[in-house]
């Protein structure tokens, strides 16, 4: 029961963690010019984003793709100025890829009709002492190295609860971004999304093929956010240790019980040997008993585990006091387990298989029985 629940919760939590963190800004995958991620220079652009976007519409599992430009510069208001990352987004498509525009707490997110609009993180707005309707000066470096200057109106303030984003991140319309940073139609990235992360992961070979055709590279979620993958891998080590320990404990408790039942029936086996039953028949009978009993026990455990998991799936599970920490990582405060055949069957199958293999111990004991000694026990 516990094994079914644990694995369903653990792996579903990882899925939630990955999806939540990727959905804030990155998307489930990105196309870039090779080397842009390591060294994000302004002139490393995808020159013909429209053609790439058109190709991506035909990739199964990809529900939306959106172009982005990323610039770095200063936002200034009055005497104050702060270094920021400015993301040029397509207001029509971006909300389907990232959740940042949905986190606007004051004002509104960007719309396709916007021109000189900007949405700021709430930390940045506070630092610049800006409110809705205020204007902010942008000073950066254009694609060709010239100075990029613009004045934009604050139409929205978002609060992601990720301090780094809220302090140093802003969004503006991609068209205006292209003008300001002299992008000449180029973009720095095309982010993709799907119904679920696994859909996009499955589409990876085709996405890489598309990238190759357009002379760009495709970065999977793990390549985009190695920190997330490493965090999951680190957590997984502990989880696997706990899980394996639980499996080992269950296997040994079950084997011990079954082995004791074999020991208790030594006399009975002696009688069976005396009346002509062969040792290997008795051994096989004991082995089959073990497998059937473990199948029955595990079947019951699976049903109870599924019932528990289903219930928690409805109500969710949260850890008191940790919800703020989770939110600061862009994750929901409550986690919901999710069952798949693998998560439900892996643990119980490991137990049944272990018992089937370790059942050789009582089997060998039966093979070594002598009728007289067995009947005298």
């Amino acid at each position: 029961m516990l094994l079914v629940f644990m694995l369903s919760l653990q792996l579903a939590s990882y899925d939630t963690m990955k999806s939540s963190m990727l959905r804030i800004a990155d998307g489930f995958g990105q196309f870039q010019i090779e080397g842009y991620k390591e060294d994000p220079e302004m002139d490393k652009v995808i020159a013909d984003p429209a053609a790439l976007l058109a190709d991506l519409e035909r990739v199964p599992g990809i529900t939306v793709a959106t172009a982005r430009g990323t610039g770095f510069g200063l936002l200034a208001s009055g005497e104050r100025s702060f270094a920021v990352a400015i993301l040029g987004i397509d207001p029509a498509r971006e909300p389907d890829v990232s959740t940042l525009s949905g986190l606007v707490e004051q004002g509104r997110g960007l719309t396709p009709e916007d021109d000189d609009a900007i949405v700021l993180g709430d930390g940045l707005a506070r630092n610049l002492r800006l409110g809705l309707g205020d204007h902010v000066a942008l000073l950066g470096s254009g694609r060709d190295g010239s100075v990029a200057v613009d004045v934009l109106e604050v139409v929205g303030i978002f609060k992601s609860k990720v301090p780094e984003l809220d302090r140093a991140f802003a969004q503006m319309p991609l068209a205006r971004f292209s003008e300001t940073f002299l992008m000449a139609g180029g973009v720095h990235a095309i982010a993709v999304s799907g119904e679920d992360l696994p859909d996009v992961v499955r589409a990876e070979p085709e996405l890489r093929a598309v990238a190759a055709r357009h002379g760009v590279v495709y970065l999977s979620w793990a390549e985009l956010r190695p920190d997330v993958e490493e965090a999951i891998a680190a957590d997984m080590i502990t989880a696997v240790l706990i899980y394996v320990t639980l499996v080992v404990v269950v296997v040994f408790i079950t084997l011990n019980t079954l082995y004791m039942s074999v020991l208790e029936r030594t006399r009975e086996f002696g009688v069976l040997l005396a009346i002509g039953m062969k040792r290997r028949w008795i051994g096989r009978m004991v082995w089959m008993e073990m497998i059937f009993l473990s199948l029955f026990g595990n079947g019951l455990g699976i049903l109870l585990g599924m019932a528990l998991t289903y219930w928690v799936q409805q109500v969710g599970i949260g850890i008191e006091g940790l919800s703020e920490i989770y939110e600061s990582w862009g994750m929901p405060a409550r986690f919901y387990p999710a069952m798949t055949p693998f998560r439900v069957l892996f643990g119980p199958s490991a137990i049944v298989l272990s018992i089937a293999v370790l059942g050789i111990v009582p089997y060998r004991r039966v093979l070594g029985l002598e009728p007289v000694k067995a009947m005298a026990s």
Partner: protein
Amino acid sequence: MDPIVTCRGLSKTFGKGELAVHALRDIDLDIMPGEIATLAGPSGSGKTTLLNMIGALDEPTSGEVTVDGQPLGGLSRSQLSDLRLSKIGFVFQSYNLIPVLSARENIEFVLQLQGVSAAERHDRAMEAIKEVGLSGLEDRRPGKMSGGQQQRVAVARALVSRPAVVLADEPTANLDSKNALALVELMRSLNREHGTTFLIGTHDVRVLEQSMRHIEMLDGRIDRDARGSA
């Protein structure tokens, strides 16, 4: 007529060196078909050990046992199982029935091991139940039967495979006098009707009185071997 059981120079020693116990010493014995022979003697005289050797349940230290013309020496464990299944019937002091099976199923079990068809198993088991006087109790489990009834089931189980010899070790030891007498009568009548050979290890004077042959053991040797008139 050839003996159904032959023992030649049979010895069995448990342990080694100074701790060695000579349970059987150079036994020569022939049991003829249709005999009811009793093995008597004080505790530790070697009755049970001799029955175990003849029943292929244990191996002698030296000597040879032959059952129904088949020498046991050199047979593999699997072949010994086959021999026990086909040629030897056992009746134990404490019945040793399988508690989760009914009387009929306990009897059928031996036939099942022999690969007898379900229909034939059923018929032969019912016939054996009738012979031991338990008709109507065939579906009862051992726990719901008296000691005497359980021992009758054990006799039926031993006989149903039509063995060459039935070995019984203290079959009446756990029975009251009435049931003990009834069991002795049963074995006697089965011997008369079917010529079944019985070799019975016992202290019970009622069994001894019914035997055709009385073998007295002492310190692992046959002290006396006398044929009676029963």
